[in-house]
């Protein structure tokens, strides 16, 4: 899983993932593919994905770090931002 995520630092892998995600994920197990399809950050984290590898997937899919942190906390982004001093700084 981490190897797949890390591969998204390569433009050609990113392009393939965005155009044909199933082909790009062919080395992953069915459970792993399902987590990536759902962008289930908490499930991927609990499964053992490195936060820093998850960041590569987040950037590829246009997801911000506050969104990921909110997911780890079991909150929506809006709920999480209410706990921050400067919610616009993202």
């Amino acid at each position, binding site marked *: 899983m*981490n190897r797949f995520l890390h591969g998204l630092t390569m433009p050609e892998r*990113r392009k393939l993932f965005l155009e044909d995600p199933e082909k790009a994920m062919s080395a992953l197990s069915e459970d792993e593919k399902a987590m990536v399809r759902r962008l289930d950050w908490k499930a991927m*984290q609990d499964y053992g994905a490195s936060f*820093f590898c998850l960041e*590569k997937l987040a950037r590829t899919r246009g997801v911000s770090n506050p969104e990921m942190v909110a997911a780890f906390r079991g909150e929506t982004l809006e709920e999480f931002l209410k706990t921050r001093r400067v919610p616009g*700084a*993202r």
Partner: protein
Amino acid sequence: MARIIGGIGTSHVPTIGMAFDKGKREDPDWKPLFQGYERVARWLEEKRPDVLVFCFNDHATTFFFDHYPTFALGVSEQYSIADEGLGPRRIPPLKGHAALSRHIARALIEDEFDLSVFQDLPLDHGLHSPLTLMWPSKPDWPGRVVPLVVNVIQQPLPRPSRCFALGRALGKAIESYPEDLKVAMVGTGGLSHQMIGERAGFNDERWDREFLDLIERDPERLARMSVEDFMRRGGNEGAEVIMWLIMRGALAPAARKIHQNYYLPMTTAMAVALFE
């Protein structure tokens, strides 16, 4: 001989670089951050160091878990900007100082710090997100960098005491370089933040303020703490501030903090401090 003229401690949050790239200097949500770096940028402009020795970490970008070095020193004449999933930032490649790097590698290994050496690898935001707020990147960087990459993301991490001792050895190594060079140390990371687990979103401003005080006046006390102490007090990922101890170890014990800025807008406390 080469001379260490001062040091900088700074956060390296990727959003600092993103805010810079999006031109948010005057955005009220970001202004307190940018303003905090103005004094540092002015100091660099006035003192004109030839080289910044940058202690930072890679974020599973250039290095991967198939081989994560504890301490790795770059020895290239140039380093490209890494692609972290959005394409490389549009800033010039970093200019290295191969001769100084190689001298440092030899001197440290002679001093029994058996670090890894790398070349021709791209560098990620750990180095250049804070750099863009301190050094002009247009038309090109005004000086060179020597990158020291520290593993703070995959257990087992180096001990804080080892980082401090490495800083002392690094200081000696730099100051034994025969050419007249002005060198500034940079230690990056932190301050308090935790990105993962149930405590994701954790910060502790009291601990951050204590850290900013101790790094100036009693770094030995910080060096006596364990990595786990740093994680407990500053968050899992906040423990990366042990890289400031490398910078501090290379400075004179009597070095004084002449500027500090602290801003905690979102998930990571963003700090910058200047030592002379």
